[in-house]
């Protein structure tokens, strides 16, 4: 956790891609240290902003230098005030950047087969990951899933970056109707994949983990917990994760994650938008609670 930079970024391009906005931001110093799976924390709203907290986005890609100095790309779904503000930026607008943050996807030392699964904008970091894996000689399959066609991101890019691409949508508007977990078993089996990488909503990551584990593959998932700071100082982004010692702790997903081994995450603690503290967690409240 050392090579992070904070820099006054400048938007140089913003374009709509399906339901998303794709931003390119000049942010010198980020690309050199960044790895796939890491993220950026952006300040929102400018100097008069009432929205203090940073918004976090997976790094889609980075380039160490170009006509404008190093750049980074993010893919943003406009939801609340912060993402709406970001989606409304124009070229030359300023945005404060803190990046790269968090632990990247671990890269296998051997050239094994891998499946990369992205839900909605969750695919954003996977093309760069695919490139890195293929450089290492890995066979790479991608699965892109979304509610509907406009919420898929990067189908064309996927065909360039991966050896095989499968698309699913909940409503069947593109690819196969259904969920990524419907197609995953067949792909793992066919490619004898050793690692399944996932990025997307929590429910999807849980099922990816289950499928991968059931088929003898390791799941590496990038989680999306609500974050206030992104840099490890606020303790809002915690989730229960088993350590190597088997003990569960409430760990910060911004510094110890966002990428976790799927089988270490205590998925059963997440229900209905709440994550409870499992009773066997270190320091869990005893009767009376805290």
């Amino acid at each position: 956790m050392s090579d992070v930079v904070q820099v006054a970024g400048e938007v140089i391009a913003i374009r709509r891609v399906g339901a998303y906005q794709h931003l390119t931001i000049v942010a010198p110093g980020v690309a050199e240290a960044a790895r796939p799976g890491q993220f950026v924390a952006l300040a929102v709203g400018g100097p008069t902003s009432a929205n203090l907290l940073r918004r976090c986005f997976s790094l889609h890609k980075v380039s160490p230098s170009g006509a404008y100095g190093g750049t980074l790309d993010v893919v943003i779904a406009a939801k609340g005030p912060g993402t709406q503000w970001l989606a409304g930026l124009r070229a030359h607008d300023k945005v404060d950047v803190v990046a790269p943050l968090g632990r990247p996807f671990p890269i296998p030392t051997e050239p094994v087969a891998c499946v990369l699964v992205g839900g909605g904008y969750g695919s954003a970091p996977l093309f760069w990951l695919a490139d890195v894996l293929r450089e290492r000689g890995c066979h790479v399959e991608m699965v892109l899933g979304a509610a509907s066609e406009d919420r898929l991101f990067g189908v064309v890019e996927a065909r360039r970056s991966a050896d095989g691409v499968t698309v699913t949508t909940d409503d069947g508007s593109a690819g196969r109707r259904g969920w990524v977990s419907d197609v995953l078993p067949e792909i793992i089996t066919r490619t004898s994949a050793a690692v399944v990488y996932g990025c997307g909503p929590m429910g999807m990551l849980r099922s990816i983990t289950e499928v991968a584990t059931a088929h003898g593959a390791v799941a590496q998932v990038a989680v999306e917990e609500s974050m206030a700071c992104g840099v490890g100082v606020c303790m809002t982004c915690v989730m229960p994760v088993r350590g190597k010692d088997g003990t569960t702790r409430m760990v910060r997903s911004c510094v110890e994650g966002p990428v976790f081994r799927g089988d270490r995450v205590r998925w059963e603690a997440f229900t209905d938008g709440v994550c409870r503290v499992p009773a066997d967690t270190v320091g869990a409240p005893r009767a009376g609670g805290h």
Partner: protein
Amino acid sequence: MADLTTRLGTLTLPNPVMTASGCAANGRELHRFFDVSELGAFVTKTVMADPRSGRPTPRMAETPSGMLNSIGLQGPGIGAFLDKDLTWLKSVGARVLVSIAGNTAVEFAQVARDLVAHPAFDAVVGVEVNISCPNVANRGLVFACDPMSSAKVVSLVREELPRDFPMFAKLTPDVTDIVAIADAAVRAGAGGLTMINTLLGIAIDTDRMRPQLAAVTGGLSGPAVRPVAVRAIWQCTAAMRENRIDAVPIIGVGGVRSGLDALELLAAGASAVQVGTATFNDPSAPRRVLTELESALDERGFASLTDVVGLAHDRKVTL
């Protein structure tokens, strides 16, 4: 360049800017953005006797110019804190203000005892007693909501610390009369006051139509609450100036985002300021506030930080 040295009772610091407890973890994370030893002091996350998992999530909600948190004092417990965190802070040369708490008054004292006994204690410039936390023995009522509970904690901790060792009681603004609580804490042996902790608040998720925080209530912080912090500091300072309570130094905290915000708290009577929630917006905030404060003093022609402490009381318009 103004002399930024500040005196907090028996404690002298090269400058008045600190982190706020719970908003800076225990130093390593921010050390990536600036050298934490450059701050007047580094205030650690409140530590209790045992490890604590903290509360379920969601633990935070963004609110206009602020946020709610219900972290629930997650932490490693005093033992691990001392061996890992305090020892690291000492290794980088930070001046450390250690924030402590307990579920009971006796637990506060126990934490203080462990702290004093540790080899890294020489990096500690003071103790902040976070009495703005629930008293298990008194139906979970926050210690600092009651003068008697506040006094009890303060006096027990006082006994564990070396004579005249800097000790600050951290107060909650959620009381009818903060001066009465300040008075109780000072009489019980607090050498200074830190104010304010967060305000109790709730936000509702209007999609789910239920509280946004799993724990329902949370602490409100950020620039939104700065006027309440300035008011609390002002009231206690006024009471000290009028000899209604004993005079002790105040560390101001609440909504400081810029050097001018810090200057507001200082002018109201604080001798030092902590930067909390603003750090989430800008991880360099504590260090930046220091630079900005220095310029603000220079621009206004003040030769020394001590010239501005409480100055707004002297310059108050008489009507």
